[in-house]
């Protein structure tokens, strides 16, 4: 996977397709994918994904593969350069974060530390 510039985050085609499907199931049109970081979790910081249909607030907006991604400014510090992918199948792990800022991740993959 090529390196993502640190002034943005990227979403793969597969992940974008899954996000669109989730938004459709939730009946949210138009929608945006909010990608944020919350405190806590086994490694100290936890990824948080939400489908939202509200106007943007103080967020960085990135559009890719038909998905508008919104990242709150405080969270962007921890997410710059991240790629969001999706792993499916019987042993799939769902949405996967490849985060160059993460020094350590927990087993479940939803928590990390910097």
């Amino acid at each position: 996977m090529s390196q993502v510039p640190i002034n943005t985050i990227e979403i793969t085609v597969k992940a974008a397709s899954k996000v669109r499907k989730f938004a459709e199931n939730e009946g949210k049109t138009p929608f945006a994918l909010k990608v944020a970081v919350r405190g806590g979790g086994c490694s100290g910081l936890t990824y948080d994904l939400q489908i939202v249909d509200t106007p943007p607030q103080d967020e960085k907006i990135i559009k890719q593969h038909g998905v508008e991604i919104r990242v709150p400014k405080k969270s962007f510090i921890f997410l710059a350069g991240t790629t969001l992918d999706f792993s499916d199948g019987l042993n799939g792990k769902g949405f996967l974060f490849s985060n160059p800022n993460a020094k350590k991740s927990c087993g479940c993959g939803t928590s990390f530390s910097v």
Partner: protein
Amino acid sequence: MNSETFFVDCNQAKFLYQKGLDGLDLLDRLSTNSILSLSEKDIKTTIVTDEKGKIVDILNVWKINNEKLLLESSTSNIDKLVFWINKFTIEEDSELQKVDNYSKISIIGNDLQELHSFIPDLISMKKGNFIDVSIKSSNFLVGRHELFNGSESIDFICLDGTSSRTELKQSISDMNIPEKKQEEFELFRIKNLVPKSGKEITDSYNPLDLGLERFIDFSKGCYVGQEVVARLDTYKKVQNIMHVVKLDEIDSNLRGTKITSLSGEYAIAISKKKFM
């Protein structure tokens, strides 16, 4: 367990409010017990641990409403707790506010007949609940809770400063419930193996070292320190054990034993399990 009934002025208790819609959720991701299911007027004890599973603080969470929690910490740990929660507050709607004029009095024991006539609502109150009570125009939160060794207590949080606390102590004394002064309570605490913040409850130990399993929900999911605590439990790797020792009978073979509290001839000691 001593069956006498007495009250104690818990002058080590320190309080802070956690305000905001995300407060409970944040605290749940930082501590060992499952607190997300708390309803209004519930109390629960949870332990905030660091990345190594060591104790940052043990606290009682009093849920006032969905946007307001009263956190009961201690003199020795409150600053560390505030630093720790603030460190992990990123996008969350959560704000901490220290409260200096609250204090706590606990009644410990089973003979509560007089107290029931003083506060009738206590009869039907379940363990882990609290109510708002007004006594002689002063306001209190009164909860049925427990000490850190599991024995039951009735806790009064005095919301109106020193004078209300003095009046409450007089009212309890009038019910023929005696007060245990700090030195007497220290001896009671040691004999009944109740760990105390700043003594046993420090960042030198994890919750399992101190027998605090009842405040850990092993199925709740992620919190800071969870992987370490879960692994210690699963693989039976807890290194230490807390126990009461009588000093004139101490076994000279108890290598690696640390005396953490002392009162008269009794002490709480924490030993390496491998030497026991």
